[in-house]
């Protein structure tokens, strides 16, 4: 699959069909990949596909000028579709090289499970529904569902629905939707006040690095309300009240665009369970409007459309 990708990407650049290729190359740390964004056809030999290609590369589409060939997992392709729906990118300017994705390994889960950091793990190998981890020469097997990212566990389209080239046959993804929304279930079971206290405490840790926003393909505004000073909606200081409002509004602003790719939670340096917000919003949108983001590039975006009769009973 990797060779097919490299050859395809090289051809795209050589034939002038795209100006840029966006994909993954090996990172500088163990079990890490890093985005490769290049115009140079010699670079594409570094492209890789492995169980650690966690980034949602579609975030780079809105900042590159020209035509782009992009490597996309199922969730990434949904983000691309959503960007097309919002007219942020034009379909004809993108060549999607689709990867049927069997799920991405969450290194934080590996670390918690083993009680040691990733750089002290020798090897992690994916073998179907098992993951074999080697530590100090000793191999241990774990069920894949214990080690995939939460959002992978409820993935609705492991294989891209929108693509120009599909690099492999569809491969099965083992999901566990109950595990995927376990944190949400716990929250829903709490009394109302306790839920608010939970989020207060979480957002007390926020340092306002804006990684969650900057990495989100759905957060494509050129100017964000948090940076507005006239009027000053929230202060740009890491205080829980301002942090919390920032995140609530961000979630509302991306409702109908968020595809539950999980990137915001993955990148949070202070481990705020952001997906417990985005995933719930994703569900609310589905419950109220039977709408799933990034599934149909011809569909009007959620917030610029309406039905005559919907969402009854919530307004007096």
């Amino acid at each position: 699959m990797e060779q097919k990708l490299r050859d395809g990407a090289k051809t795209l650049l050589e034939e002038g069909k795209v100006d840029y290729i966006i994909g993954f190359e090996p990172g500088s740390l163990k079990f890490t990949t890093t985005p490769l964004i290049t115009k140079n056809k010699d670079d594409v030999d570094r492209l890789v596909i492995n169980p650690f290609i966690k980034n949602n590369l579609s975030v780079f589409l809105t900042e590159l000028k020209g035509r782009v060939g992009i490597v996309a997992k199922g969730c990434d392709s949904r983000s691309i579709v959503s960007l097309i729906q919002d007219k942020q990118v034009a379909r004809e300017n993108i060549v999607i090289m689709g990867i049927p994705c069997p799920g991405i390994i969450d290194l934080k889960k590996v670390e918690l499970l083993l009680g040691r950091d990733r750089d002290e793990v020798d090897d992690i190998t994916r073998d179907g529904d098992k993951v074999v981890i080697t530590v100090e020469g000793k191999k241990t097997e774990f069920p894949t569902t214990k080690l995939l990212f939460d959002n992978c566990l409820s993935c609705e389209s492991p294989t891209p629905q929108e693509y120009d080239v599909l690099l492999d046959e569809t491969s099965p993804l083992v999901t566990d939707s109950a595990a995927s929304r376990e944190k949400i279930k716990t929250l829903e079971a709490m009394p109302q006040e306790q839920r608010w206290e939970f989020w207060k405490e979480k957002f007390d840790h926020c340092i306002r690095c804006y990684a969650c926003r900057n990495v989100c393909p759905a957060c494509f505004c050129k100017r964000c309300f948090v940076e507005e000073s006239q009027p000053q909606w929230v202060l740009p200081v890491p205080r829980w009240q301002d942090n919390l409002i920032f995140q609530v509004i961000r979630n509302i602003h991306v409702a109908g665009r968020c595809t539950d790719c999980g990137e915001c939670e993955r990148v949070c340096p202070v481990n705020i369970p952001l997906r417990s917000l985005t995933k719930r919003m994703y569900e609310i949108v589905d419950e109220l409007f039977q709408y799933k983001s990034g599934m149909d590039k011809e569909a009007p975006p959620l917030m610029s459309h309406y039905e005559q009769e919907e969402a009854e009973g919530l307004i007096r």
Partner: protein
Amino acid sequence: MEQESEWEPKLLGFLCRWCSYAGADLAGTSRKKYPANIKIIKVPCSGRVDPLFILKALRMGYDGVLVSGCHPGDCHYQTGNYRARRRIVITKKFLEYMGVDPRRFQASWVSASEGVKFTEVATEVTKELSEIGANQLFVDGK
């Protein structure tokens, strides 16, 4: 701490100028009494209300927020209130999930001729806010 007996809920209303604002006006001129607890901001359309306004009002210490616009189908700008509806219900559901009492953020459709309905809505919302007590959402500590 404010004394329980002195405390009165403060409600911020964003009212569409074409209908609910006129409705509130009608309630006033026809001497239908609605609670003085509501402070009204006139907006060109319920579609103008960004969920940010709601959060900002709660942050500023209002005990509740009411958004009121034209009945579905009656929008002066054809579709403003339909769009508002999607935004409002999403915000309402989401805030509830986060732990905000759903009674703190309410919405209603009130036409220019419904002075009575406006009085009812304002009275009921104020009553509900009295029941749930002062907004402590953004207060430090606990």
